[in-house]
């Protein structure tokens, strides 16, 4: 069974902008896939669909399936339990006064007991290296810490599919390295929208390139990113790391 199966997905914003035109792809359980493409290519829009946050009304013949379950108005809850979405701006996601409360938010919504919630919070914070931050105010964290707290908040729901929107943007090199190492240890199926092409090379065996709301390439990350013509045609570039891997 596929972890994610999207067929013929289209979306048009209220102002008429066509954001997604007939998107279809599948992701196998345990895969880590990079979603690449220039700004405005539809990456974030696509990610919102995976959690049923778009469209407001499900219509047309496009379908999103998560582990065989087709997303519909009636099963949003079940879909959101399976798909954890980490937003691009940590301030959108961290809305509780303290870190522990924020991480506990998801498990609370799942209706777990106090003890289970506490255990989940502890585990999630340990996974992202924020043990001891429980009572820190969310608005006093550094940007890197905010990112980790966001990820902890999603991990605490124990999703099968992890969807991340530009997880390493605005991070310093060390923060980026640590975040990548952390992501690698997580067993969930991952779909990562990013401009960090080196991360794509390091973490994701497969990449999907999106441009103008269409999938223009889908294949092995090394093959796609090594194709300089393809990269330049879609507002991307060959990452330096590949020059070292395949010196000309």
């Amino acid at each position, binding site marked *: 069974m596929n972890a994610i199966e999207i067929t013929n997905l289209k979306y048009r914003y209220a102002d008429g902008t066509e954001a997604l035109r007939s998107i279809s792809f599948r992701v196998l359980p345990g895969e880590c896939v990079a979603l690449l493409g220039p700004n405005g290519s539809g990456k974030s829009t696509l990610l*919102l669909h995976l*959690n049923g*946050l778009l469209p407001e009304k499900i219509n047309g013949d496009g379908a999103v399936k998560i582990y065989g379950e087709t997303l519909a108005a009636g099963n*949003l*809850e079940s879909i*959101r*339990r399976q798909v*954890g*979405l980490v*937003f691009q*701006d940590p*301030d*959108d*996601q*961290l*809305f*509780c*006064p*303290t870190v522990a409360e924020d991480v506990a*938010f*998801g498990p609370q*919504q*799942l209706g777990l007991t106090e003890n289970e919630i506490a255990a989940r919070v502890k585990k999630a914070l340990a996974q992202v290296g924020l043990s001891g931050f429980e009572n820190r*105010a*969310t*608005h*006093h*964290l*550094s*940007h890197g810490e905010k990112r980790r707290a966001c990820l902890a*908040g*999603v991990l605490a*729901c124990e999703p099968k599919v992890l969807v991340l929107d530009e997880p390493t943007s605005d991070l310093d090199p060390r923060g980026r390295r640590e975040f990548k190492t952390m992501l690698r240890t997580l067993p969930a199926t991952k779909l990562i929208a990013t401009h960090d092409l080196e991360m794509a090379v390091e973490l994701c065996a497969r990449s999907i390139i999106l441009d103008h709301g269409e999938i223009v390439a889908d294949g092995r990350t090394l093959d796609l990113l090594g194709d300089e013509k393809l990269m330049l045609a879609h507002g991307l570039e060959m990452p330096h790391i590949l020059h070292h891997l395949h010196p000309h």
Partner: protein
Amino acid sequence: MGAHHHPPHHHPHAHGFLLRLPVGFKLAAALGLILTVVLMPRGQWPALLVVMALLLALIFASRISWWFLLKRMLLLEPLVLGVAGLMLLQPDGLARCALAMAKANLCLLVTLLLSQTTPATGMLRVLQWLRVPWLFITTLTLMHRYLFVLADEAERMRRARASRTFTPQHRFQWQALATVVGQLFVRASERAERIYDAMCARGWK
């Protein structure tokens, strides 16, 4: 930058014993004090003076900066004046106005003292314990959280605007300010939508 720039009220200024008192007790005491002041009959100036002395002693003991309190009081004074000013229209207006001003300022001082010696999270917890409707508490919690984000955003926009402001003409500055306020409103409501999405993504119902 986000982690360092915050409005001055992000946590209590006080270090004294008031900070260590249980939040519930402080809330009840403040409410009691406000009721006492408001319900005090006319002509009881000595009693008001006693309350005033008590408050001054508490402020002294909790080591809040006098300058900071004065600034806060001045900021809220227009409201006090507005309400007290209306009293002037009644018979015996001057005395009524003076009394209303004294009472309003004492109440103001009590709330300032409470807010400066009590962390917002503690206050929210007490409200929860008091069974205040969850919608109200959620709104307050979100407001407390995003006030800082908005203040940061306004400050970033102000700096960005200042860096491109070459004419000291007031007319342009007011125009620019109006744009910034409008922009801030749009950004805030868009952010609110994203926050709601993020909450839904984690199972909010």
